[in-house]
């Protein structure tokens, strides 16, 4: 059985991993895990980024995606670096999930997710509202590793 929410997220469910660069310029390896709960009423995203050399985690967050009364996606998000916020779906191309919301410190966060073949492209940006204070856009290109033995496997 599918729900309107699951019909949007079904291709993303599972485990994804790939290089990520934060707005600070720090590079790492990002892992994302999408899973649905309560018969597809909510989709949970757990994301971590760790240092490639040491394995030390330097970014972590969890988001819960649900549908609002108008059929648009709402994400309740916790990111360790920013705290709690709510992102609302904004208009974009049909194959893009774009979300935007306000952070506690006055920044606005915009996030976009696009699935291209077996690659998930995640970008995010923090904007301050003050000209010239926008932070660089972060980009993560993630591949799913749950449909095959990875190329590194013996």
């Amino acid at each position, binding site marked *: *059985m599918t729900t309107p929410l699951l019909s949007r997220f079904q291709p993303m469910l*599972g*485990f994804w991993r790939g290089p990520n660069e934060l707005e600070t310029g720090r590079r790492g390896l990002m892992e994302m895990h999408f*899973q*649905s*709960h*309560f*018969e597809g*009423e909510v989709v949970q995203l757990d994301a971590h980024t760790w240092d490639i050399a040491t394995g030390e985690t330097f970014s972590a967050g969890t988001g819960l995606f649900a549908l609002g009364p108008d059929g648009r996606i709402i994400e309740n998000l916790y990111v360790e670096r920013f705290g709690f916020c709510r992102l609302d779906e904004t208009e974009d191309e049909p194959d893009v999930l774009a979300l935007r919301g306000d952070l506690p410190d006055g920044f606005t966060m915009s996030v976009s997710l696009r699935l291209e073949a077996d690659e998930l492209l995640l970008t995010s940006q923090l904007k301050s509202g003050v000209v010239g204070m926008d932070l660089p856009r972060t980009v993560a290109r993630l591949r799913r*590793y*749950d*449909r095959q*033995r990875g190329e590194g496997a013996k």
Partner: protein
Amino acid sequence: MSRRVADYLSWVGVWAGVGDTQAGQQTAIRTDFVAGLDGTSLQMHFEAWDTEFKTLYHGVRAVLAPAPSGVLRALGYSTIHGPLILELTPDDEGVMALAGDSRANNHLSVTFVQDAPGELLFTAFWRSADKSAQAEDGPRMTCRLKPATPWSPPRA
């Protein structure tokens, strides 16, 4: 017919129901299937309680995964039998039939059958090593499990 982990990933989620233990008591069962090891394994958390949720009759955690040869087995821990490795026996689509011996030589059999959409028939039994002659049709734990569906208000 040999099966793959992917054949069972549609079971991911929480399933629950009320059934009977092998000893004949009523039991409330909750089992949670989760994709593990990057989705290449199916992790299972199984609990059988008395219907007032005061006593955990039996708890099992297990990981169904492919051996390098491709055959599926389940690694497990049972609150009754301790560490386990169970073989997945070939069966029809929609059936997960696991069997094996505990370290104390108790024989265990666990089966989930998806006999209708949104319904799993769970059956399990174990017999001690000194009762090897006991017939396979002896008492067993049985329960019809349904996906834990959120309550919604009745529609007029």
